[in-house]
C-alpha cells in the first residue's frame, strides 16, 4: 500500500524569452520563497532538484542554486541531472519510506545564455550519432514526418496544435505571450519555427506532503494517484518513432484513466497527437490549458511545471483528475506520467 502523497504548493517564475539579467539562483529564490510562504514551511524532510550543467556552461551549476534554498543548517538533499519532474519522482519515493512528511522539489534552466540545439546535440550517443552533427530539431522532424505519414495528419493539424497552445498561453501570466502562428518557412521540414518550443528561461518549485500533513497544508491537496516513468532505446533506428511506447507504459502503470486535464511536455507540436494516443486521451480531454511548452519551455523545469499546472487544476477545484507528463531524451525517449486526483484519494 502506497503512502498517500500530494502536491500541496506550486510556484513558477514569469518565464522570459531572453536573458532577464538574473543568475539561476536569483531566478529560483523567489519561487522557493513563494512555496515556503504558501505552506508556512521553513524546513523540508527532503529536497531534490533537477537541472543541466551544460545549459549554464559550467560544471556544478546546481551548487549555486543550493544557495537559494538556504541549506543551513545542512539539509537532506539530492539532485538529478534531468528535468525536475524526475526530482519529484525521487522525492515521492523518499516520502514512501514513512519517516519524513514533506519534500521540496525545484528545477531551473537558463537556455537563453546557451545554444540549446547545440547543447542537446551532445546528448546523443557520442560514438555513432553525435558525430553526424544531427540536432534535436532534426531528429524531431524525422519523427514528425514519420507520424504524418503513418497517421494521415497534415501540417495544418500541427499548426492547429500550435495555434491552440499559443492562444491558451496568452491567458497564462507565466507563459510567453506569442502571436498566432503566421506563414513562416520551415525550420527543418515538416516542422516550422512555431512547431518548436521557444527558448525560455525560468524556474519552478513544488512542495510534496504526505497524509495528514498534506491536508493541513492545503485545502484541496492534489494527491498523486499514480506516478511512473519509462525509457525506450536511444537509437532512433530501433524504435517506432510514430508511437511512444514509454509514454504508453508509464501511463498504464500510473493509472492514467478518467483524465479531465492533461499537461503534456510537448517540445514539438507533433508530439501532442503521439502522446494523446499513447496515453489514451480522448477528444474530451483538455490538453495543455496553460499553453504548454509551446508557449513556455524553461528547460529542466518544463516537465515539473506540467505536474504543477495539473495539480493547480485540482487545487482550484476545476478538475478532479488530471495528468502531468514529462519527457526527456531525443524523440520522446523517456516519459514520466503523474496522475493527480482530488478528494477521496487521501
Amino acid at each position: 500500500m502506497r503512502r498517500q502523497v500530494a502536491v500541496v504548493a506550486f510556484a513558477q517564475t514569469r518565464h522570459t524569452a531572453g536573458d532577464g539579467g538574473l543568475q539561476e539562483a536569483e531566478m529560483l529564490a523567489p519561487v522557493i520563497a513563494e512555496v515556503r510562504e504558501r505552506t508556512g514551511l521553513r524546513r523540508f524532510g527532503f529536497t531534490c532538484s533537477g537541472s543541466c550543467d551544460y545549459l549554464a556552461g559550467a560544471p556544478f551549476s546546481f551548487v549555486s542554486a543550493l544557495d537559494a534554498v538556504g541549506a543551513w543548517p545542512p539539509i537532506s538533499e539530492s539532485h538529478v541531472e534531468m528535468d525536475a519532474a524526475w526530482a519529484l519522482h525521487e522525492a515521492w519515493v523518499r516520502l514512501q519510506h514513512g519517516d519524513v512528511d514533506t519534500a521540496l522539489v525545484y528545477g531551473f534552466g537558463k537556455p537563453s545564455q546557451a545554444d540549446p540545439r547545440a547543447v542537446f546535440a551532445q546528448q546523443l550517443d557520442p560514438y555513432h550519432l553525435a558525430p553526424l552533427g544531427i540536432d534535436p530539431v532534426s531528429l524531431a522532424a524525422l519523427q514528425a514526418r514519420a507520424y504524418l505519414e503513418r497517421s494521415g495528419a497534415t501540417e495544418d493539424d500541427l499548426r492547429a496544435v500550435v495555434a491552440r497552445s499559443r492562444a491558451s498561453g496568452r491567458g497564462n501570466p507565466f507563459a510567453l505571450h506569442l502571436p498566432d502562428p503566421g506563414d513562416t518557412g520551415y525550420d527543418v521540414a515538416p516542422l516550422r519555427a512555431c512547431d518548436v518550443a521557444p527558448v525560455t528561461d525560468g524556474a519552478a518549485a513544488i512542495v510534496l506532503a504526505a497524509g495528514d500533513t498534506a491536508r493541513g497544508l492545503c485545502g484541496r491537496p492534489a494527491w498523486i494517484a499514480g506516478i511512473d516513468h519509462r525509457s525506450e532505446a536511444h537509437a532512433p533506428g530501433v524504435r517506432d518513432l510514430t508511437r511512444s511506447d514509454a509514454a504508453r507504459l508509464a501511463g498504464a502503470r500510473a493509472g492514467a484513466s478518467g483524465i479531465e486535464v492533461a499537461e503534456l511536455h510537448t517540445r514539438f507540436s507533433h508530439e501532442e497527437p503521439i502522446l494523446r494516443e499513447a496515453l489514451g486521451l480522448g477528444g474530451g480531454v483538455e490538453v495543455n490549458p496553460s499553453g504548454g511548452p509551446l508557449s513556455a519551455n524553461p528547460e529542466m523545469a518544463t516537465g515539473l511545471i506540467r505536474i504543477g499546472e495539473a495539480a493547480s487544476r485540482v487545487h482550484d477545484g476545476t478538475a478532479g483528475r488530471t495528468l502531468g507528463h514529462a519527457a526527456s531524451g531525443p524523440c520522446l525517449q523517456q516519459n514520466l506520467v503523474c496522475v493527480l486526483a482530488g478528494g477521496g484519494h487521501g
Partner: protein
Amino acid sequence: MGEPCAVIGIGQTAYRSRRRDVSIPGLLREAARRALDDAHLTWADIDAVVIGKAPDLFEGVVMPEAMLADALGATGKPITRVHTAGSVGGSTAIAAAGLVHGGVHDRVLAVAWEKQSESDATWALTVDSPFTTSLVVGAGGYFAPHVRAYVHRSGAPGHIGALVAVKDRRNALRNPYAHLRIPGITRAMVESTPMLWEPIRYLETCPSSDGACAMVLASEHAARRAPSRPAWVHGTAMRSEPLAFPGRDAVSPRAGADCAADVYRQAGITDPRADLDCAEVYVPFSWYEPMWLENLGFCGAGDGWRLTESGATAPDGDIPWNPSGGVLSANPIGASGMIRFAEAALQVRGRAGGHQVDGARRALGHAYGGGAQFFAMWIVGDTKP
C-alpha cells in the same frame, strides 16, 4: 527507513588510466554484467536502473542516461540519473536503495562510472560560472587550503599525509581492481615526489581512472532468494550545505557530521570506532583521512592524525580504513563514492578477497563532493536490521 533493502550483487571493472578496449557503454556494461552474475540474475530481472556520474562536462555527453539506456537494459524500464558532484556514487546507491526502501521496486541496478581517458577533468573542474572568477586549478587547488587549515588547527606533524598514502597504496596491492599499484612504496618515496599544492605531494593525490561500479539492490523477498550472503542496509543519509558563507567550517563541515549522526542513529551506532569493523571513506587527498576521522566522530577534534599515526586505521588496526586502497588508489570520479559503498558491502558479505577484514560485520561507506559540502553515507551489516 521503510522496507528492508540488501545488496545482493556487486560488480567492478578494473580501474586503469585508459580503458581503450571499451566504449563508455561497454565500460558500464562490464560492471553491470558482473553485478548481475554475482546475484545470479539476468537483465530481465531488473525493475529499474539508477545511474550516477560526475559533471557531464567531463566526457562531454549531456545527460548520458539517454544514450546508456540501451546498454543497461533499460528499454521499457525507469532510468534515473543522479548528479551530486563527487558524492554522486554514494547518492546514486542511496537513490537506488530508496526505490527498495519505498516499496516501489524489488530489484534495482545502480551503476556509477567515469571514463577519464575520454575526458579532461581538470579542465572541466576549472571552468567556472561566467559570473565569478576562479583562481582554482583542479580539485587539489581547491582543497589544499582546507588541509593547511587542518594542519594549523590540529598541530599535526607534516608526515601524516605520507603515512596515509603509503597505507592505502599497500592495501591496493591486495585489491585486483585497484589502479595504482606501487610495490615497495615507502614514506621516503612519497616524500620525494613533487609538491603540487602545499602540503599535498604528488603521491598524496588520487589518480585519474577509467572505471565503473555496479550493485544490485533488492527487497527482503528478493534477497532471500539470492545465491550468496547479502549485505543489509542499516542506514542511509545525505546532507548538503552551501558552498560558502561566513562561519562555514570547511575543515570539518557540519553537513558531514550531521550526515554521520543520522546514519549512526539509524544503525544504532553510538561509538563508530568500536561499533564498526571497517570503513571505506572518500579520501582523495591523503590528509583527508585524519580530517574525516574527526568529522565522522571516530575520535575527538584534533586527534585524527594521532589515530592515523598509531596505526589504528591500518588493516591490522582496530578500525581499518580503506582496506581496498581507497580513492587514493583508484579514482573514476563518478564511481568513487559507489566503490566505497560497494567495498563496505563486500566486507560484510565476506567477499573482499585479499583485502578482507577478518570478521567484518558492520561497515561504513562514505562519499563527499562539491566543496566538501555534499555528503552521502550508508552503513551495511551482515544481518537484517
